[in-house]
Structures are given as structure tokens and as C-alpha cells.
């Protein structure tokens, strides 16, 4: 992948501009260790760090034609088809790169090119004649693009750390957004955790005109394609498998070796299996293993790897490694996280890089588009309960929902869970859908923050904010489709793909590719009947059915086990908090950063004075990971790292002065 930066500032002179774009770009070298380049012009500068994957010898950026300059981070998987089509229309190409295809496509089609791309991208395109800057992002927000507005100037970057190089600027946490983030796992729409920093929404582009106006246009929204329901379930399975297979095929296009992540779950097992169809040679697979059996999935990873005879690397991770790596990983994930799960992925991408692999295919997004999460089941259950109140079947449904939770061996405990779900009957089918459940589960988070913040959760405001991002046809969707939409806008794009996905792999210059995020696949199955995806309590039904017989049953029939890593146990060992945890949870640090209520943190720290309980609650794990990571985010803002670009790998410097 790559890193991109940009500056729009009429008040910077050439030297000041050059100095700043170099500083900003220098912070993104981990994303692009193979080369870098800059573009300078009155009022506008662009920067680029490159991870070379296609056309290693040319394809340097920023790339120029007479009319346009581009700085782009991404892969367009159908770039060859688009190139052929453009060639037929008389367009001439100088390189073999996909970058040039994007540039020429933009030149030829203008903004209409964006929906043609099947891929993941963020890009900045400067019109050298008019002075306009157009920025765009892929449909689902796979590749990041942040925009900072400061004193009338705009700054753009793949990661927010580039903004820390701007003189006189220190990122400040927006308190209201922090609360939304804590409750819903992400802010909504284009908001980020920080004041004056936005994230360009997926599926949109913006034009910054030379006269100062900014316009945003959406070129794609989920569910926009006309409904085309297959004749029956069997045809659906065929259609689905064919599309998924093609999504994998496209994403294997590369001039460098491609590997896959193999977590032991069905999603990555299917992706790896399909990869083997297109790879004659042995290919590399990677996974994380845990010394703590509660988290370890290596049995299933090995099963798949043995079956496909892949060259498998399993990286063992223990509590102490997570503790030692958390601070460094937080430099990359750039926002508080609720789980330490991103950290092993950070460590894994380092191993991948050490084995000279730059691209991996992974199974993200299957849970969103195929109804893999428990929330889908819960919503279904609530809907049935509301339609048939007073039936005894609710107990049976709850038991099916939590087969692994030992609490429910005792039948009266079921009563509490029933009481818990009863509270949702009133609003589970409002615009927030499954977010209602997430917010309630996270409600404890609201009491952690500093009293002076004076913020409290405003459900009405969140409902209004949510309504403002809903497409016109939202009302016609089923409850589960609505939930898919919200999951993709919040948890997936804002957290799984960014903090846990892009940021963790790009920390070591490894590009993740996500076949389940092929828009043809997503659009095709969006209007499949819900029951194809969630049949009773059988989640991802069509996926499991389609690959039964090819993927081992032990993997097909595994209950949903979200990928997690040890949280609290990593930071509290042998009866005490670790050195890192003690430092960041200390009263001095808590007071200095001013994010959290000192009393709350003190009580939390004291809670484990007699050691950790055998069963650590969901809440305690979440609080530990969240508070520590938030403190670390503030630490990095206060102490930004300094970088310098390596002169010997500079590829281009283009100037329009």
C-alpha cells in the first residue's frame, strides 16, 4: 500500500511548503518504505510514500500528466480491464502501473471514474489548470483519508500523525465524539475523535475549488443496486461462490508474492482455500497463536494449513508480549481501542514483512455481510418476541444464543438475561437497530470520563446523527439489512478495517486485501432473503453451506468465536499491574492527560488488589484496554515521533512553480 499527504494553503511560501510536505510525508514511511516523492505548486503540495506492488520499476508517485497530478494509496483490482478499455478509446500508457490507469481514467471520465473502480483506495488529484483538488475514497473506507482544517488551510493524510508535524498544532480530543466512540465503538459519518479532523466517508469524493468552496458528493451507497433475487437457494449458493471466487482471483493480482491470514475461523479458511485454487505453487499462510488456551485457535489453523499444504507460520503471543507492544501499536492505531486484539496483528505483520511478503488476503467483512455477529441473532430474537409476546420460547432462544456461557446452566439466570432483553423491546427496531444493544453494553464507559467534561449520553442526538446518514431506501430494508448498514459504517470501517486492519498491517508495510469487500459481491447478496444469511440461529448460513465438504466440518460448524486476545491479563500479572500499565494508570498521568475521572481509575486499579478473578468480565477487559490505549494516544500527541525521509529512495519531485 502507500501513504499520501496533501496541503492546501495559499499563505505558505515555496520553502515553507516544501519543508512541511516533507515533514508530513516522513511520518508515513512505514506505509511506503520503498520510495517517496513530492509535488509542489503555489497553494497546493502533495506527498507520497510507496509500497511497490505492481510495476515495481516505474509507477512512481506523485504521478503527472499534463493536466493532473495524483497521489494515491490503493489497488484497483480491475485495472487491467479498465486499461484495455481506455486503450481501445485511444488512450496511451507509459507504465504498467495501476496508478497510471487511475490517472488516465480520471482524465478521460472525470468523477465518473470512481464507481468504475473495483478496489480499495484513497486519492488526491490536483488539476494543474484550474487549481482544484479532488479527493476520493473507496466504497467501504478500507484505505484511510483524514482531513484537517486549520486557520483556513486544509491538510490531508492517510494517518493523523502527519498532522502532528504542523507548527503550532496539537491535536485535541473532542469530548462529545469521544463519548460516542466509547459507546458505539466508533464515531458516525465523517467525525473523528479529534477537533477539526474529519475522515472522508467511504463512497464519496470532495472537490476543493480554487475559489475556496468545498463540495462533497456520494458516488456509492450500500444497497443501491437494483434487487435481483436468485430463483432459489441453490442458485444463490452458486452465484455467491462464483463471485467470492472471482473476488479472490482479482485480489491475487500482484508483481510480488501474496500470502493469506488463516485465523482458524471459517472466513479466512474459505479465502485461503479459494486462494489455493489460483495458486499452483505452495503459498504462505500466517496466523497468531496464544499461549493461553482460551484464545488459541491453532488447532483449526493447522487443520486448514495441512489440508492445503501451505507454508504456514504461526506467531506465538503471550501476555507479556502484548503488554510490551501496546504502546508502539497505539502509535499506529491512533485511537482508543476496546480490546488488545489489534496488537497480535501488529506483531504478525512484522513477521510477514520479515518473510518478504507485502500482500495478504484476509477474511474481514464476512460477519457484516453474512450476518455473522450475535447482534443479528439478537435482533431476530427480539423481533420474534415482539410479534409473539408471552410465549415460553424466549428462553429457548436465549439458550441458543449463548451456548457457551456457563451462567445459563442455571435456569434462573436466564431470567436476568430475559429481563435484559426485555428492555430493548421498545426501541430495538428504531434507526439505531443493533447499535442500541452495543450502546447499552458499553454504558459503563460513560462514567469513566473526567467530571469536568460535563458530557452525558444523548440518545436523541445520536438518533438524529444516525438518521442524517441513512440512504433514502433505508425504510424499505429489513431490520437485519439496516443493522448491516450500521455495522459497516461504524464497527467495520471505523474500527476493524482501520485500527485493527489497515493500521496494523501497514505499520510494517503489509497490504491487506479483503475479498469479502468486493462491491459486486456485497451488492449482489444485500438483497438476498435474510434467511439465506441467518437461518434460525445458523449464521453465515450460505457461506457455510457453500463450502461444506471442501472446508473441514470442524471449522464449518465452529460456533462464532470473535478473534480476541488477552486484555486485562496482559496488564495485570502476578498480583500487580505491569510497569507500562502502572505508568499510564498512575494518578500523575491520569491527572496530566485529564481524560479520565481519577476516582474511577483509582477504584478500577484497586479492584484487583487480590489478583484477577478466574472469570474476567467483559466490562473489566474493555475498561483496561480502553483506558490504557486512550492514555497512550494522548502520550503520542504530546510526544510525536520525529522522522526523516531517506534521500536515496526519493523517486520524484515535481514542481509547478
Amino acid at each position, binding site marked *: 500500500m502507500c501513504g499520501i499527504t496533501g496541503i492546501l494553503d495559499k499563505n505558505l511560501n515555496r520553502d515553507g511548503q516544501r519543508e512541511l510536505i516533507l515533514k508530513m510525508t516522513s511520518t508515513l514511511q512505514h506505509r511506503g518504505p520503498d520510495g517517496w516523492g513530492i509535488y509542489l505548486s503555489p497553494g497546493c503540495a502533495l506527498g507520497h510514500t510507496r509500497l511497490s506492488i505492481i510495476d515495481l520499476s516505474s509507477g512512481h508517485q506523485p504521478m503527472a500528466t499534463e493536466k493532473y497530478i495524483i497521489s494515491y494509496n490503493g489497488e484497483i483490482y480491475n485495472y487491467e480491464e479498465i486499461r484495455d478499455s481506455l486503450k481501445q478509446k485511444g488512450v496511451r500508457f507509459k507504465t504498467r502501473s495501476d496508478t497510471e490507469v487511475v490517472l488516465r481514467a480520471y482524465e478521460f471520465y472525470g468523477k465518473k471514474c470512481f464507481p468504475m473502480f473495483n478496489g480499495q483506495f484513497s486519492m488526491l488529484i490536483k488539476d494543474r489548470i484550474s487549481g482544484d483538488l479532488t479527493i476520493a475514497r473507496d466504497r467501504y473506507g478500507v484505505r484511510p483519508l483524514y482531513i484537517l482544517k486549520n486557520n483556513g488551510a486544509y491538510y490531508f493524510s492517510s494517518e493523523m500523525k502527519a498532522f502532528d508535524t504542523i507548527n503550532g498544532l496539537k491535536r485535541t480530543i473532542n469530548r462529545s465524539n469521544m463519548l460516542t466512540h466509547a459507546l458505539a465503538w466508533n464515531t458516525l459519518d465523517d467525525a473523528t475523535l479529534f477537533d477539526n479532523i474529519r475522515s472522508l466517508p467511504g463512497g464519496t469524493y470532495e472537490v476543493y475549488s480554487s475559489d475556496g468552496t468545498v463540495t462533497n458528493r456520494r458516488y456509492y451507497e450500500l444497497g443501491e443496486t437494483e434487487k435481483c433475487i436468485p430463483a432459489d437457494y441453490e442458485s444463490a449458493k452458486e452465484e455467491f461462490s462464483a463471485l467470492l471466487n472471482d473476488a479472490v482471483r482479482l485480489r491475487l493480482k500482484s508483481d510480488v508474492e501474496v500470502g493469506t491470514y488463516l485465523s482458524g475461523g471459517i472466513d479466512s479458511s474459505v479465502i485461503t482455500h479459494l486462494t489455493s485454487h489460483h495458486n499452483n505453487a505452495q503459498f504462505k499462510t500466517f496466523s497468531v497463536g496464544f499461549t493461553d488456551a482460551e484464545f488459541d485457535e491453532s488447532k483449526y489453523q493447522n487443520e486448514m494449513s495441512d489440508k492445503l499444504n501451505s507454508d504456514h507460520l504461526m506467531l506465538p503471543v503471550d501476555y507479556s508480549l502484548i503488554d510490551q507492544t501496546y504502546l508502539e501499536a497505539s502509535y499506529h492505531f491512533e485511537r482508543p481501542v476496546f480490546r488488545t486484539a489489534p496488537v497480535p496483528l501488529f506483531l504478525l505483520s512484522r513477521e510477514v514483512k520479515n518473510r518478504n511478503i507485502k500482500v495478504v488476503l484476509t477474511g474481514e467483512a464476512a460477519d457484516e455481510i453474512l450476518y455473522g455477529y450475535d447482534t443479528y441473532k439478537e435482533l431476530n430474537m427480539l423481533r420474534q418476541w415482539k410479534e409473539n409476546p408471552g410465549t415460553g420460547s424466549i428462553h429457548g432462544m436465549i439458550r441458543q444464543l449463548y451456548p457457551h456461557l456457563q451462567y445459563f446452566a442455571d435456569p434462573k439466570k436466564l*431470567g*436476568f438475561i430475559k*429481563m435484559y432483553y426485555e428492555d430493548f423491546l421498545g426501541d430495538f427496531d428504531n434507526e439505531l437497530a443493533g447499535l442500541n444493544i452495543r450502546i447499552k453494553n458499553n454504558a459503563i464507559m460513560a462514567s469513566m470520563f473526567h467530571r469536568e467534561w460535563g458530557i452525558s449520553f444523548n440518545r436523541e442526538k445520536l438518533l438524529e446523527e444516525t438518521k442524517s446518514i441513512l440512504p433514502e431506501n433505508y425504510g424499505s430494508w429489513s431490520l437485519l439489512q439496516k443493522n448491516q448498514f450500521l455495522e459497516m459504517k461504524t464497527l467495520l470501517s471505523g474500527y476493524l478495517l482501520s485500527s485493527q486492519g489497515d493500521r496494523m498491517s501497514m505499520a510494517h508495510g503489509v497490504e491487506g486485501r479483503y475479498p469479502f469487500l468486493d462491491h459486486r459481491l456485497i451488492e449482489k447478496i444485500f438483497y438476498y432473503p435474510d434467511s439465506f444469511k441467518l437461518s434460525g440461529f445458523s449464521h453465515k448460513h450460505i457461506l457455510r453451506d457453500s463450502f461444506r465438504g471442501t472446508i473441514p466440518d470442524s471449522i464449518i460448524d465452529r460456533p462464532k468465536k470473535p478473534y480476541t486476545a488477552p486484555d486485562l491479563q496482559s496488564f495485570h500479572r502476578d498480583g500487580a499491574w505491569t510497569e507500562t500499565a502502572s505508568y499510564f494508570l498512575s494518578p500523575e498521568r491520569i491527572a496530566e492527560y485529564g481524560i479520565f475521572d481519577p476516582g474511577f481509575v483509582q477504584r478500577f486499579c484497586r479492584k484487583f488488589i487480590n489478583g484477577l478473578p478466574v472469570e474476567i468480565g*467483559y466490562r473489566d477487559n474493555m*475498561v483496561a484496554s480502553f483506558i490504557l490505549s486512550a492514555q497512550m494516544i494522548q502520550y503520542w500527541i504530546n510526544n510525536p515521533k520525529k522522522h526523516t525521509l531517506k534521500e536515496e529512495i526519493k523517486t520524484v519531485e515535481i514542481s509547478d512553480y
Partner: protein
Amino acid sequence: MLENIKKLLLEFICRNFMVDENDVPQDRSLVDAGIIDSIGLIEISNFMEKEFNIMIDEEHLTRENFGSVEKMVNFIKRQMES
């Protein structure tokens, strides 16, 4: 007796859920107040059974008995007396 029950219950809630006593509403649902989640209610009921030596059956699991600290205190007292 009620005062003693309340004292012990509040101590448990504050210790286990990391809240200050001043932040625990007496007459509102602890779940609605964001202090506990559903697993929290299970933890509280386990504590009640052990600490006060009472039996809690499925039929007791209602908002009338668990819908606030005051209601819980009254429920515990009733169970102890029965």
C-alpha cells in the same frame, strides 16, 4: 436491618462496579444508569444469595425486585424473613 442490608449491598456494588457511592442511584435501575450490564445483575444475585443466605428463584427475577437498589434491599429483607 434494612440499613445494614443496604450498606452491604452498596459496598459490593461500589467495589465490584468501580463506582463511587454518591453515583449510585437508589431508586433507578442500575442498568439504565449505565453502572452495570446484565452480567452485573447475575453477579449481584450471586452475592445476595451468599451474603444473605437466601434463595433466588426464576420467579423472583422481575423489575419489582431488581429494578433499583431500594427494591433489591426490600427483596432481600423479604427473602430473609420468609
